C-alpha cells in the first residue's frame, strides 16, 4: 500500500526513507526522485495549485498502477502545493523493492505519469510582482507515453 501525501509543508526525505525500511528485512534497494524548484529567469517562487480530492485519488491510482507493474515492498509519493522558493523541494517519489530494477523503473514511471496525470498547476512569480502560468510540455507527454501499454 503506497503512502500518498499532498501537503503545503516541506517533507523529511530521510524520515520517509527510513519509514520504507522500518520493520522489514526484504528491502534490497530504494530509488528516489526529488523534484526541486529551479530559479529559471530570476524566478522568485513557484506557486502550485491543485484540486483537493481529485489530486489524492489520481496519485493513489498512479501508485497502484506502479504496484501492479513492479514487485515493490513500498512506495511513497509526496507532492507539495502553495508557494515554493528556488532550491526548495516540490515532490518526492520513493520506491522500495528487493531488487534495483523494479525500484529504478517504477520510480521513473511514477514521476513521468504524475507530471501528466495529477491535477497540479504551476505559476511562476517574479521579483517585480509579475507572474505567468507554466505551459504543459510536449516532452512530458512523450515521457509519459513511453510507459503506456497497448
Amino acid at each position, binding site marked *: 500500500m503506497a503512502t500518498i501525501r499532498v501537503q503545503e509543508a516541506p517533507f523529511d526525505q530521510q524520515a520517509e526513507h527510513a519509514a520504507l525500511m522500518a520493520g522489514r528485512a526484504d528491502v534490497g534497494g530504494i530509488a528516489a526522485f526529488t523534484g526541486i524548484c529551479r530559479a529559471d529567469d530570476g524566478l522568485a517562487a513557484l506557486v502550485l495549485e491543485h*484540486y483537493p480530492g481529485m489530486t489524492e485519488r489520481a496519485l493513489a491510482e498512479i501508485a497502484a498502477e506502479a504496484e501492479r507493474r513492479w514487485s515493490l515492498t513500498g512506495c511513497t509519493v509526496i507532492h507539495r502545493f502553495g508557494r515554493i522558493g528556488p532550491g526548495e523541494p516540490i515532490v518526492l517519489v520513493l520506491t522500495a523493492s528487493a531488487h534495483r530494477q523494479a525500484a529504478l523503473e517504477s520510480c521513473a514511471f511514477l514521476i513521468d505519469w504524475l507530471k501528466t496525470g495529477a*491535477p497540479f498547476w504551476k505559476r511562476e512569480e517574479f521579483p517585480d510582482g509579475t507572474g505567468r502560468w507554466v505551459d504543459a510540455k510536449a516532452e512530458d507527454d512523450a515521457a509519459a507515453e513511453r510507459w503506456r501499454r497497448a
Partner: protein
Amino acid sequence: MRVMYFAWVRHKIGISQEEVSPPADVTDVASLMRWLAGRSPGHAEAFAQPAHVRAAVNHAFCQPDHPVGPDDEIAFFPPVTGG
C-alpha cells in the same frame, strides 16, 4: 451541478467555483463549455479555445463527449503541470 475552475481558467473567470443549472440540451462536457462561455466576458475568454481546456467529472479526467448531470462536479483547467 457544481462547476470548478483551476489555474488560468479560474483567473480568467474570476471565481473558483459556482453552482449552475444549465438547460436540458446541455448533456455533455462540450455543450456545458459552450453554455458556460455565455455567462460572462471572463467565461467567454476562458472557453474561447476549448481545445486548450481539460475537464474532470467527479474527480476523473474525461473527454468532451463525457455526459454531465445535475449531481455531478465538473472541473475545467489547463493541461496539468505538476511534478
